[in-house]
């Protein structure tokens, strides 16, 4: 009986969860669909019009005499209407409606409601943002114009050059520190650890100006080393805290038997601790990678906007600023920038969940 009841409620659970998932998915879906639509379509109709929907479609056109006076009643198809009515559209018999197509040339559309879908897809947006050559696009009014492509490929490589060391270096440094905090004895251990945790809450904006001044003095500004150092510093508190809570929970016997065999701290750390901490390293690694890949502020301040070192997020933010309403480029570029983190996330998802559990869930 119990089982039967649970089966009934399973339907309900699946339904509610499906609804929530749909809500979560719709904004991203909208971006993806928009990115394969033509520039004029994006500006003129919502992305959901690619699905079959009931909409007015022009079935016929009536051209009125050129000298029709718009201030008086206008006769169309044997009935009289005002100009305002024709502007907003007026319903006539058997479900049709009349609306101006071109008011100056006195052309009226006779429209009917029909099932329609706006299936006009294109890959031009992606070619444009990835290629970087000249591209012809069709503008909303039908004319064509040539536009310079945005060449995101270069920024893509730059972002990788920034992200990979900015992920590996802080995690390496943090794991050394976490090992020392958990298993070595030295004066000032507690104080230093508490300071590290307290630094978790320092908003990184306070560091931008003083660090920028130092970097300029040291010649680190505008190149990769500088941004690696910055990301390392800003990522260290969380990584150290997280890895400490994992490494300090490893069983003590492990170390004792290794010490008995005469292994040094360094050997124990590299041969024993690092392999054992793979889930934790992977999950904090994904976190740090997502954060660095998606970061805009640190890159903006420490790398600057020279085209040969510019990262993806900066290019996209620049597109928002300089092109304004060029949604077709923005949507495609945003989607390109999402691909890498999504790929990493789905590839390492298993580790992520397991590592997060080891780190912070203790029941």
């Amino acid at each position, binding site marked *: 009986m119990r089982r039967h009841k649970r089966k009934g409620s399973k339907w309900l659970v699946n339904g509610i969860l499906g609804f929530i998932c749909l809500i979560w998915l719709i*904004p991203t879906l909208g*971006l993806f669909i928009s990115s394969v639509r033509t520039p004029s379509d994006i500006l003129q109709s919502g992305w*959901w019009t690619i699905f079959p929907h009931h909409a007015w479609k022009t079935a016929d056109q009536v051209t009125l005499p050129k000298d029709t006076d718009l201030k008086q009643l206008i006769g169309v198809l044997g009935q009289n209407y005002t100009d305002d009515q024709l502007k907003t559209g007026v319903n006539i018999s058997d479900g049709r409606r009349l609306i101006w197509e071109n008011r100056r040339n006195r052309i009226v559309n006779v429209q009917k409601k029909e099932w329609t879908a706006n299936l006009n897809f294109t890959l031009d947006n992606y070619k444009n943002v990835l290629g970087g050559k000249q591209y012809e696009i069709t503008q909303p009014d039908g004319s064509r114009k040539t536009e310079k492509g945005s060449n995101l490929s270069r920024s893509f490589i730059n972002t990788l050059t920034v992200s990979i060391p900015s992920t590996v270096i802080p995690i390496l*440094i943090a794991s050394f520190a976490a090992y020392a905090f958990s298993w070595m004895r030295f004066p000032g251990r507690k104080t230093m650890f508490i300071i590290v945790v307290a630094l978790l*809450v320092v908003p990184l904006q306070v560091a931008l100006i003083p660090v920028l001044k130092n970097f300029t003095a040291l010649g680190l500004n505008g190149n990769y080393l500088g941004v690696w150092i910055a990301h390392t510093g800003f990522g260290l508190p969380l990584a150290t805290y997280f890895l400490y809570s994992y490494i300090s929970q490893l069983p003590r016997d492990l170390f004792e038997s290794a010490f008995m065999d005469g292994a040094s701290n360094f050997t124990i750390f590299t041969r024993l601790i690092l392999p054992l901490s793979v889930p934790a390293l992977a999950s904090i690694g994904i976190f740090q990678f997502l954060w660095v890949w*998606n970061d805009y502020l640190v890159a903006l301040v420490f790398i600057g906007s020279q085209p040969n070192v510019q990262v993806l997020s900066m290019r996209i933010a620049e597109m928002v600023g300089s092109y304004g309403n060029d949604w077709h480029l*923005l*949507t495609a570029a945003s989607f390109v920038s999402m691909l890498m983190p999504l790929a990493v996330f789905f590839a390492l998802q298993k580790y992520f969940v397991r590592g997060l559990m080891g780190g912070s869930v203790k*029941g």
Partner: protein
Amino acid sequence: METSIQKQNRLWLGLATILVPAINAVIHFQIFLFLRDAQLNPIWYAILAIIWGVGGVYTIYLSLNWVVEQYPVKWRQRVQPFIFIAPAIVLLAWLLLIPAIRTIVLSFMDAGSVDFVGFANYVAIFTDRLLFSALRNNLLWVVIGTLSCVSIGLVIAVLADRSSYEKLAKSIIFMPMAISMVASGVIWKFVYFYTPGNQQIGLLNAIVISLGGEPQAWTTLAQPWNNLFLIIILIWMQTGFAMVLLSAAIKGIPEEQLEAARVDGAGEIRIFFNIMIPYISGTILSVTTTIIVFTLKIFDVVMVMTGGQYDTDVVATQFYRQFFMYRNNGYGSTLAIVLLIAIIPVLIFNLRQFRKQGGGF
């Protein structure tokens, strides 16, 4: 005879102590100069830079540790921990600790950081309308944002646990975490987009019109509700984080305990409140803390969507504006310090919890 060997040893150790760090410094400086000035194919450049960046840090640790291992045991045990933590401590002090202390000092100085003004900046922050509205909005973010993320995350975690497509659902909810703020900004502009008239390309306005309502400029003119529409973006991004952790905790509840309650005739809702919630309270606390810290520092969402205009400023954006645009170091620093002070209680509460769980501190 023996003393001369010892002397030789000591000399050798001293030499190694000086030479190894020096050689490290010279080599890495040369590589740095080479990479800075080299004109290479971007792909080769990326590969070289990545190898150097990752390998370099490891070889520094390796070589310094080698020097320490040459020392007599007593000295080795004293010095080695510092080799392990020194890079972390140096970087943290340089990049976060010293700037934080400097900010505290600047918060007591005037706009140009010349004269000492005491608590004048702090008074201004709680009286100036613009600055105060940033504080108020930030409070809104913390309360509404955190509550929604944690409670929706909890509901989804419980539902997913009983559904027949758990993995898929969790991936979908978690996915926004992987999307950058800038890209999310573009995504949500397609939801909130507003043009006057009946032809809308923004989803929300299209829904409103199809229900017979008037289109709204959600993130700009619909004050003070526009803050709420921005917070929804945060909820969309962060709920996945709460859900993953809470879901893991729920799976840790022993099945017998739930079964026993069911046998006693408790309904699912009573089980949820009386058994599940108390059991996972530790996780709820740590998730809540993380999200509070995150929302207190919220910056990108507001910057990308409204730039802090239309009364949507939060502390971090106002700080950015004061510091970088109005060049008012005093106000900027004070805002940052207020933020810091606001986080301290959360932090203390958490450290205490950490100690309770046997973290050793």
